[in-house]
Structures are given as structure tokens and as C-alpha cells.
């Protein structure tokens, strides 16, 4: 998929860095303040294929090094595929 680069990347990066700084420093973050990086992160969000469509083919190593794809991941009724940010932070 071709992606358009937003023209306010710098501004968003500054919001995200500031939020990261506050968190690392243990500063309290009010819900209103937290809404800023949330909105920056969610801007123009896309959610991919819709119900009834076929999900893209994929083949990736799992944490044990075994290559996995839908065929060897799915249960009899299906697979819940969760996309998340990182296990590292």
C-alpha cells in the first residue's frame, strides 16, 4: 500500500518526544494532556481490510524461529491476529 507522508510529522514528533520525556521523568500526565499524543498518533488512522475481504498472505517467524502463516496458526474456527506496537517498551 502506498502511504502519504503527513506534512506535520515534525510537530507530531515533538509532541511524542515531550510525552516520552514526561513519562520517563515520572511526571504526572493528566488525561487532557495525554490526549495530545493520542490524537497525534491516531491521526488519519487506517484499519486495513474489512469483514468479508481476504486478509493479505503473510509468512513470519514466531518467537521460536518457526515460520508461521494463517494455515498453521488458525484454530478450527479462526485466528485472532493482534497487531501491537512493541514487546520491548
Amino acid at each position: 500500500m502506498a502511504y502519504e507522508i503527513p506534512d506535520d510529522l515534525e510537530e507530531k514528533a515533538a509532541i511524542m518526544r515531550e510525552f516520552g520525556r514526561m513519562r520517563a521523568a515520572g511526571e504526572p500526565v493528566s488525561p487532557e494532556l495525554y490526549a495530545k499524543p493520542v490524537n497525534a498518533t491516531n491521526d488519519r488512522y487506517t484499519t486495513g481490510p474489512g469483514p468479508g475481504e481476504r486478509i493479505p498472505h503473510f509468512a513470519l517467524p514466531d518467537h521460536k524461529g518457526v515460520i508461521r502463516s494463517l494455515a498453521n496458526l488458525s484454530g478450527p474456527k479462526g485466528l485472532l491476529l493482534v497487531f501491537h506496537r512493541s514487546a520491548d517498551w
Partner: protein
Amino acid sequence: MLDQHGVRIAAVSYDSQEILSGFAEKHRIQYPLLADRDSAVIRSFGILNINIAPGLRAHGVPHPVDYLAAPDGILIRKYFVANYMHRVTASTVVLREFGVVSENAARVTLRSGALSAEIGLSTSKAFAGQHISFIAKFKLDPGWHVYGAPLPEAYTAASITFDDPQIIGQSFELPEAQPMKIAALGETLPVYGGSFEGQGSLLLKFPLDAGRIVLEGKFHFQQCSDSVCEAPETVLFELPLNIEPFLVATPKK
């Protein structure tokens, strides 16, 4: 919990296999963690988060979407939470796919004329910004029906809506209504009769104060027998929900 219903789970992130291996061991994770190193699969799904500049650690992360895919690869449903720190709960997946509610979840029973309805939330507690689900089970006395969609203007289709500022997004789905020839009106209209149910989802506003809130909903319908239609009705109902305190995940030292 999902396993009992024949659904398995796998997670995808841009971490390396090494990082994921350590994480799985540390947290005793039983399901596969897939290493999408250069975010290629993330991109192929069309969910790359483009707001994160190169140089930031989060560059390459996806929007946090969960996909429930059938074994043949056809998508059954997807789940997305606008607040990236709080994911769709397992309770929502279990409710939407298998019709089972949590024991403590709020439930309300409404009755009007020939129609009774039981409306319940998928969970008793949630975070602000989270998606939760609700299920609505209806039962009509024999000989009575309510209208579904699509309808000519003079008639009222059954709907459940939450006109509540604490809810910023919602959907409600009923199965397809069956066409019925209504002799008294000389029309064939889509109707529901007997027992039927619908499911919906609600997106909670962010931020919300922690504590007990009440969600206000409206059930709008028109019930008809073969010979007479009651006036369209709106029944108001309330469902309580506990909003968990707002937490910002602190970085590990």
C-alpha cells in the same frame, strides 16, 4: 478463553525474534509472537502508522487493529481501539462471536406489549477510549412482529441507539429481516418475529473520569400484529459501567 471456542491467537509486532523470545519467556506467553522486522506485513495490511517520524523508536508501528479471520483467510470482524493503550477486551470478542456475557456485566430487561428485550453489555468495567459490545435479545409473542430495514417512510424500524455524550461511536446490527406480506396494509415489509438478537459496539469517549457511569440508550420500534400496528415506541434504558482509573504505562528501567 478463546481456545474453547476454536479460535487461536497470534500477535504481530516489529520486534526481532530475540526480543520476542525473551518477552514470551518472561511473561509465559503461550501463543505465537510473530516478528515483522521491517514492518512489511504491517504495511501489507495497510495499517502502518504514518504519524511517527523516522528516528522515533515507534517508527514502523501499526495502528492497533485486531483481526478475527476465518480459517480460509476471509475476515470475520476487526477490532480497533482509538486509544492505543487500551485494547479490545477478550470479553468483547467472546460476546460478539459466541454470545456469552461476563457474569457481572450490566443487563436490563424491557417489556412493552408483545415485545420483551434483554440488553446487556459485554463487560462490567472498561477504560475510557475503549470499545465495548452489547447484545440485545428480543422475543415477540406469537402473531406479532416488529419492522426491520429497509422501510418506507411511514414505518419505524427497530433500532437501539445510545444518545449519550460518553459514547462517541456506535453500531448495532440485526440479522436480515424476513419479508412478510401484511394483508391489512397490502404491502410486503421486512419483519422480525419470535426470538431474535442483535449485537452492537460502543466506543467510549476519552478521557472519562474513573468510577461508575450510566450509559443511556433508546430502544425504538413499532410492533404490529396481522391486523393492527401500535404507535411507534421509544423505551429508554440505562446500563451502568465502571470506568477504570486512567493509567499511563511507565517505562521499565
